[in-house]
Structure formats: C-alpha cells, structure tokens
C-alpha cells in the first residue's frame, strides 16, 4: 500500500468501516510509515480539538434575547400549522 492509497482509506478507517483485510493493510502501512502514522494521530487530534472546544461562543445575554424574540414570534401562532396555510 502506498501513502496515497493509505490516505484514500483514511475516512473509512476513522469510521471503522473498512473491510478486515483492508484495515489490516492500513495498519501494516502505518506500522512501517512514520509519516502516515503522524498524519493519522494528528488528524484524529484535529477532529477532537474541534469537537471538544466551542469555537463560537454565544453570550448568555444574546441567548436570552434570541429566545425572547423567538417566543414572542411564536405567540399567537398555532404550532405545526404550516400545512393549513
């Protein structure tokens, strides 16, 4: 398996969707290729760091304002009445 072929399998590898023989090939390649091993580890870390950290904060005051605006717009409307329009 070349590095390019390895990269092509990366998404399915992360998802655990590779067939057993292909996954074995991927693991063998990683064991032999330090570069690809680093790519896998740091890509996994990239996903984790975005999943675990809030990139866009929304302040409590903005949340309150938006919630109040939404609830006031809903007031007087019947839920789920779009098909009656």
């Amino acid at each position, binding site marked *: 398996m070349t590095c*390019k072929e390895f*990269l*092509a399998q*990366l*998404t*399915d590898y992360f*998802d655990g969707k590779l067939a057993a023989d292909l996954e074995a090939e991927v693991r063998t390649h990683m064991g032999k290729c*330090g*570069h690809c091993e*680093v*790519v896998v*580890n*740091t*890509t996994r*870390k*990239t*996903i984790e*760091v*975005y*999943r*675990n*950290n*809030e*990139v*866009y*904060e*929304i302040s409590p005051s*903005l*949340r309150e304002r*938006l*919630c109040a*605006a*939404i*609830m006031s*717009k*809903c*007031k007087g*409307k*019947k*839920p*789920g*009445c*779009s*098909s009656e329009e």
Partner: protein
Amino acid sequence: MHPDVALVARVRDGDTHAFEQLVRQYDRQVFRIAQHITQNREDAEDIVQDAFLKAYEKLDQFQGNSKFSTWLIRIAVNESLMRLRKRKNARTVSMDEDVQTDEGFIPRDFADWSPNPEQQFGQSELADILRKTIQGLPEGFRSVFVLRDVENLSTEETAEMLGLSVPAVKSRLLRARLQLRERLSRHFKQAKGAPEK
C-alpha cells in the same frame, strides 16, 4: 423514548414552555452551525430565530422518524445556505465552489504534536486559533467538516442536508480534515517550543 419526543408532543398540545425548553436546548448548536456556514454573526443570529420559528410552524411535518435535533439542524442548514446564497447574490454559489480539483490533498507536515497541545493555550486563544483555521477552509469543505465532525452527523445525513453525494462528502471530509491538520500543526508545533508566558 427520547425526551424531545415528549416535549414535541407537549408543544403540539399548545404548551409554549415546552417549545422554550427545546429552544434553550438547541440554540447554541443552531447558532454554531449557522455561524460556521455563513461566517457572519448577524446572519447567524437571524438564522437562530428563523430556524426555530420555522420548526414551530412546521411541527406537523416532523414525523418522528429522525431525532428532533437532526430535523432542526436540517432546517438550520437550509436557512444558512439560503442566507449565504442571498448574500452572494451577484454570483451563483454552489457547494462545489472552490473544490473543483480532484487531486487529493498531500500532507507536508509530519511533525508530531504533544499529547494535549490545546492545553498550551488559554481558552480564548485556542478558540481564536481554531476559528481562524477553520475560516480559511473553502466553504464546501467547512460545511462538511462541521456537520460531520463537529455536530457528529452521519455521512448520509450530511450528504442529504448539503445536497451532495456520499462519495463527495467523504472526499471533502478527508481534504477538510487534512487541511485543518496541516494548518493547526503550525500553531501546535510553535507552541511546543515556545517560552512560557
């Protein structure tokens, strides 16, 4: 039964407090998705309002086959894409923009990171790095990464919401991940040897 199903039933019976509970539960997620896709704070604020209002009005269309959160995200993504297209009205925007090349992205940086590189930064500094890094991604990559990796939707759900094929989502996800990795690598490596503040 998922607790949201009971809340939705109460909303249908006219309990607006139940809807408020749903708003408070998912407002941050809707805001995050809208901000990621549109890259515009005012648009994101409008989208939060529009998405919840639409969800309220269309509650009769929620079948309960999928989770309420997935149904709501679908509405938020639609609203976000519509805003994006409206804002860039002068030229047609499609999710194919900026991503025509079929060439795979080839990694160049092979230096390993420390086990917890994010701990070398303060929370706001880290958020700043992550924000600037993801902002640099082409739109068509960013949306796929956010839905798939940040919001944890399936490849199929992401494809359906963005109007892409499953192979297209997979290909964009790979390139988004690799590009983010490459860019983050610079920050995390620098910090590794940097003197303490």
